[in-house]
């Protein structure tokens, strides 16, 4: 590993930015191969396809350009990645600029999900910055004929005594320096950080966002751009048999009516099919689409009824198809227990509903298709488009715009392929715009989940834990006919952290009649809801304080090695040395939340508190909710969110993510539900699929725990899981009503 190549001079001269110092950093696991690439448009991608990098470019103009390979969807990643690079570089913040990377394997994974941008690239980016700093310092040493040790980079310049040269002045000479081996790099200590961990770094995209200049997927403009609105089959797989193209074409501005390719299984990221209306402007396309009156052939999913399906899942709980964790003898322990306690929970299907519905533009020229898309994963977009047209991924050029929210929806590339298809058919640049109705009806939904937890009890000790689940899973979009969950059990089910001798986690079937996909924190939502509610129920049953009981169940401070606990645990792709499953930190997070919320102190009549904690994406988040009755109903008045995500790069954005996660969690607990009748989604717009609004938003207090861990955990997702259980536990505390099926609104509770 860590073999370092010198940047070849020739490559320098053929590169696009001839006067810049360009550096690449690689994924820690792959090795460190700097590349000359600022060449965002390079026609000659580097020979090593796997070289995954984030790039840094320092121009003669003294600008430090950070090439951001991850998608910005509100998590602040463009700014945060730049903070890491600029810090190790000792740049001046005012000289930092961002360049958004095209899709390309050379960057390593660009799949912006799994709360992995900082976690996955923190070290590599620091090394990229430190490498550049080293080379700039050596360039200055050469210029001044001094020992490199005497030349120090600070605030965008290298200094030695009175002497000073800006990075820009040194860029050319720095590019000729020997690239240091990793062992020659001195990474900064935490105390030396200027930007990492700084609370006061503003968002680099703020001014664009606040003046309306920021370009999202839906904002892309091209000469001669046509706009398409697609009428998709209301039931998955239905084909159009008849439609009134003529009526649509009569709408002024409508250019053409184009039938989309048929959907085949597995659905993956293919377009759903249907009929597109392409027009000179969005309004004409929308209006034309309403004139189509498409009649659809029957589909095998026509009878899908989510209500009946949810009931059917009850029966599936006992059809143990997969065993996810097995330790000891649960069956016998349950049979012989002095007491058992069983509860069932249900979380319905949910929609992502990013504020910007999916949107993508495409144009073909000379066998190359160029895309502009609000995508969370430009590499998956390349692949999906290449697969559809049987071309090479290198023939698909993907520009990533800002995303008006993603939450996992924009990891799925169906809308991108639609744009490519329509542009090819029309031989003209086309932008596909999804309406809100499209977004809610044709989502890759968060899969509904029925769960049952049973315990054998000896006093207040749990001697056996059985967790059963039934529901459809994400694999169904990649494998035809796949039934039930699979890897989802890694997210809160297998990794149940309580010290229990006998554990059994199983799942039953769950056929898919719609598309399912990952939504912010994925299966953690359902698992944390079930476990977080169950612990609270059990605590009340045993007349224990729920917070204390959580601590009791978590047991002694220890690292859990799940391989000794009857399961293989994926730990979000991290090894257990860097990211141990540390029970002490879970407890610590929980304690802090209880502490700042004043848990246990007397509350006024009509108020009650609920608590929950959950580890996901290698971070711990605890939530306390305060519920208050108002007339017949309850509302959540206040929420405390505490995170231990290890090392934090951008604390203000971490707080923002916690605020957002609290609202996302309350939103889904109150209102989140997508239902289907006759195969058709029943929620059309924000009146049917309600999201939390300002007047319903509780006060939110956030707190961050810093235990001195040098490595960062995930941030975007782990805030969501503990919210819904804390909310329901608080509602129980104040009303005595237990909500085991979300959403609360349907139960008449909020």
């Amino acid at each position, binding site marked *: 590993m860590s073999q370092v190549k010198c940047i070849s001079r020739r490559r320098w001269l053929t590169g696009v930015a001839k006067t810049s110092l360009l550096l690449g950093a690689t994924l820690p696991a792959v090795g460190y191969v700097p590349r000359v690439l600022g060449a965002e448009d390079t026609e000659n991608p580097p020979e090593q396809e796997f070289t995954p990098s984030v790039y840094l470019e320092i121009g003669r103009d003294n600008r430090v350009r950070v090439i951001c390979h991850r998608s*910005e*969807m*509100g*998590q*602040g990643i463009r700014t945060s990645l730049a903070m890491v690079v600029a810090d190790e570089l000792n740049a001046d913040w005012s000289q930092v600029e961002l360049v958004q990377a095209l899709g390309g394997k050379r960057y390593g994974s660009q799949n912006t999900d799994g709360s992995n941008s900082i976690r996955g690239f923190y070290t590599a980016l620091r090394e990229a910055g430190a490498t550049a700093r080293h080379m700039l310092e050596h360039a200055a040493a050469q210029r001044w004929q001094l020992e490199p040790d005497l030349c120090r980079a600070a605030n965008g310049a290298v200094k030695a005594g009175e002497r000073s040269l800006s990075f820009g002045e040194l860029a050319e000479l720095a590019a000729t320096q020997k690239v240091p081996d990793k062992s020659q790099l001195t990474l900064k200590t935490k105390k030396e950080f200027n930007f990492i961990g700084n609370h006061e770094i*503003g968002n680099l*995209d*703020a*001014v664009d*966002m*606040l*003046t*309306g*200049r*920021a*370009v*999202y997927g*839906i*904002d892309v*403009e091209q000469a001669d751009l046509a*706009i398409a609105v697609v009428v998709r089959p209301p039931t998955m797989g239905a084909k159009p048999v008849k439609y009134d193209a003529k009526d649509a074409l009569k709408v*002024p*501005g409508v250019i053409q009516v184009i039938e989309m390719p048929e959907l085949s299984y597995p659905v993956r990221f293919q377009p759903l099919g249907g009929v597109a209306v392409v027009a000179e*402007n*969005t*309004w*004409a396309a*929308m209006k034309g689409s309403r004139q189509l009156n498409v009649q659809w052939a029957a589909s095998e999913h026509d009878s899908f009824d989510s209500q009946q399906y949810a009931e059917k899942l009850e029966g599936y709980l006992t059809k143990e198809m997969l065993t996810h964790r097995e330790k000891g003898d649960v069956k016998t322990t349950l049979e012989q227990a002095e007491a058992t306690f069983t509860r069932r929970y249900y979380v319905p299907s949910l929609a992502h*509903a*990013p*504020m*910007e*519905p999916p949107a993508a533009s495409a144009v073909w020229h000379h066998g190359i298709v160029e895309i502009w898309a609000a995508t969370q994963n430009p590499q998956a977009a390349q692949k999906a488009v290449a697969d559809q047209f049987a071309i090479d991924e290198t023939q698909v050029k993907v520009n990533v715009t*800002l*995303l*008006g*929210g*993603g939450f996992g929806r924009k990891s799925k590339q169906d809308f991108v392929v639609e744009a490519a298809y329509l542009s090819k058919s029309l031989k003209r640049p086309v932008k596909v715009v999804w*309406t*809100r109705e499209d977004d809610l009806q044709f989502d890759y939904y968060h899969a509904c989940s029925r769960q049952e937890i049973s315990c054998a009890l000896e006093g207040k000790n749990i001697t056996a834990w059985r967790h059963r689940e039934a529901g459809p899973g994400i694999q169904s979009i990649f494998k035809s006919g796949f039934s039930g969950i699979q890897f989802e059990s890694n997210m809160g089910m297998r990794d149940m952290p309580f010290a229990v001798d006998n554990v059994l986690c199983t799942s039953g079937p769950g056929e898919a009649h719609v598309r399912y996909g990952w939504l912010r924190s994925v299966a953690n939502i359902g698992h944390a809801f079930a476990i977080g509610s169950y612990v609270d129920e059990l605590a009340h049953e045993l007349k224990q304080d729920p917070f204390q009981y959580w601590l009791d169940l978590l047991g002694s401070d220890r690292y859990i090695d799940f391989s000794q606990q009857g399961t293989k645990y994926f730990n979000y792709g991290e090894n257990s040395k860097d990211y141990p499953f540390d029970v002490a930190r879970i407890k610590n997070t929980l304690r802090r939340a209880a502490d700042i919320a004043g848990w246990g102190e007397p509350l006024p009549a009509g108020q009650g508190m609920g608590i929950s904690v959950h580890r996901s994406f290698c971070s711990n988040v605890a939530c306390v909710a305060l519920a208050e009755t108002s007339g017949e109903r309850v509302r959540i008045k206040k929420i405390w969110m505490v995170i231990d995500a290890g090392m934090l790069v951008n604390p*203000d*954005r971490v707080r*923002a993510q916690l*605020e*957002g*996660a609290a*609202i*996302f969690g309350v939103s889904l607990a109150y209102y989140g539900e997508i239902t289907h009748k006759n195969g058709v989604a029943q929620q059309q*717009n*924000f*009146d049917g699929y309600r*999201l*939390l*609004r*300002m*007047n*319903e*938003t509780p*006060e*939110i207090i956030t707190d961050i725990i810093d235990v001195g861990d040098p490595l960062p955990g995930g941030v975007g997702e782990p805030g969501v899981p503990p919210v819904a259980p804390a909310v329901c536990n608080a509602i129980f505390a104040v009303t005595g009503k237990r909500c085991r099926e979300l959403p609360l609104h349907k139960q008449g509770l909020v």
Partner: protein
Amino acid sequence: MIKFQVNGETHSYRGDTSMPLLWFLRDIADLKGTKFGCGKGLCGACTVHLNGQAVRSCVLPVQVLDGQSVTTVEGLSDDAGHSIQRAWQTLNVAQCGYCQSGQMMSAVALLQANKAPSDEDINNMMSGNICRCGTYPRIKKAIKLAADLAIKVN
């Protein structure tokens, strides 16, 4: 032909007058700061000012606009120097930013009518604007900050 002002400039339009102002702004006038979120007046992403009042441009057909004056987010300032933009920036309100032009246009209209809004006033005005990222707590703070900034300026 319909003639109306957008950010002080006169636009004349001869096309389909059933077109909502939102799509006129975005597709015809190329002012893309005003966003599409629902098309049904449910989310506020498309909020602009019509003669100083906050309106949802997605449900406002161009035909009613003859002689009227429209202000969009682009009309607030070029450099984010408007007090509402400064407050938004100071408190790092935006996450994805997509809803924020609508949020700011609602907030500006609120502050024009009410120099020192209470929490309840803010809730009343702002609850038509959805933010999926969950920036409401900061929006609330930023409106109060903007109110202070505006008072200082005057």
